[in-house]
């Protein structure tokens, strides 16, 4: 059996129905452990005080915001090449989730920026690139909602997602050339020495896993909703004709 079998809506509904309870359970477990550990059982930073704990939301949200877009890119490609409906509906389902993560990252970043940098917002490359990502999410969603016919919408948004990804990447480089950064670099890389100290690191990893699971759960749920909405629409259309 090939993996494409799961792109059959019926098949997908069955499998996802079985997977969902597990996904929900794991998500709740990871997030509870990670956040409680992070918020209540780690010391305060000597420099940042308790604001350092924003990291447990900010960093996972920021990571997932980018990964959600990447997932949308992949599923959009699958739709363009193989025309599996579940694939493109998963992209559609992921967009609002990704957008929410993006906004969470922006808001937590802003809350963090106020004590750390003395401003809610600075035109730092990473922040700017993130803002542009937000724009792409909005554009993508706006295009979906503007088109009536679902297949037309799927095709056009997939093309937009593809082209948009290229330009998002270009923006990232352009922005680097344009401004020096305030924001810290990657602190979770494996090959670097100066990772965040262990006390912060372990709960952070759990939180990141929790956010990944949260994303998967949300996307599964929303994809199921999209499939149902699509069926409902077909039923209504048929009733109209009858």
């Amino acid at each position, binding site marked *: 059996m090939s993996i494409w079998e799961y792109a059959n809506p019926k098949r997908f509904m069955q499998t996802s129905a079985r997977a969902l309870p597990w996904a929900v359970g794991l998500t709740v477990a990871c997030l509870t452990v990670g956040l409680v550990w992070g918020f209540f059982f780690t010391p305060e930073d000597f420099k940042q005080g308790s604001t350092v704990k924003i990291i447990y939301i900010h960093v996972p949200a920021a990571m997932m915001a980018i990964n959600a877009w990447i997932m949308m890119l992949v599923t959009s490609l699958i739709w363009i090449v193989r025309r599996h409906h579940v694939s493109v509906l998963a992209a559609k389902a992921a967009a609002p989730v990704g957008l929410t993560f993006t906004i969470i990252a922006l808001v937590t970043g802003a809350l963090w920026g106020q004590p750390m940098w003395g401003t809610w917002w600075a035109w730092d490359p990473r922040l700017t690139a993130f803002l*542009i990502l937000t*724009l*792409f999410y*909005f*554009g993508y969603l*706006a*295009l979906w909602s*503007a*088109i009536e*016919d679902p297949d*037309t919408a799927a*095709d*056009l948004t997939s*093309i*937009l997602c*593809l*082209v*948009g990804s290229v*330009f*998002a990447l*270009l*923006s990232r*480089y*352009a*922005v680097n*050339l*344009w401004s020096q950064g305030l924001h810290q670099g990657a602190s979770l890389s494996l090959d670097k020495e100066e990772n965040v100290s262990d006390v912060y690191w372990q709960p952070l990893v759990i939180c990141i896993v929790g956010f990944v699971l949260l994303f998967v759960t949300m996307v599964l749920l929303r994809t199921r909703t999209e499939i149902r909405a699509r069926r409902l629409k077909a039923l209504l259309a048929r009733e109209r004709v009858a």
Partner: protein
Amino acid sequence: MKALLFRDLRLAMRAGGGFGLGLAFFFLLSVLVPLGVGPEGSTLGRIAPGILWVGALLACLLSLDRIFALDFEDGSLEFLATAPIPLEAVVAVKAFAHWLVTGLPLTLIAPGLAVFLNLPPAGYLWLVLSLALGTPALSVIGTFGAALVVGLRRGGLLLSLLVLPLYVPTLILGAEAVRRGAEGMAPATPLALVAAISLGAVALLPFAAAAALRVNLR
């Protein structure tokens, strides 16, 4: 194809066509910003490269929805899609016509408007050069955006929403080149990148745009 180009140019020149209006918008923005921001010369000089580029970008943007919408509404686009020229060529010709009507005049008039905004003299050459290299990208990207929204009634502002983020790299790099030029630094790197974006966009986006058009005509 030549027929299509000439028709588009002729339509642009006729009453109610787009020629000159992009230009007018560019002009008005360069006048409004000093009115809004206040008359201090030094501040204006500092923001001039950015404002001029933003102005050029908006002027392009505002004329985008003419590219396909009119042809769609009166049915010509369906006839063009069934005509013996590939849709990719139609898209490329339309982008080129848009550039001739918008991007080129903008580039030529920009130094004049830079005077209003107090751009330092060292920046003039780079302003013209960066616009000349960057506006083709704006036209092609815009044509792609217009192809995406062509089926929708008055996609105009949705179009802006879709296209503006795509314009970001060109804008940043173009304005950066002018700024560096105006401050006496070397503007070669951003300028080369702007040219690269233009080339890439011209080479690849017509295919994406034609695909989008086909979907929209369905």
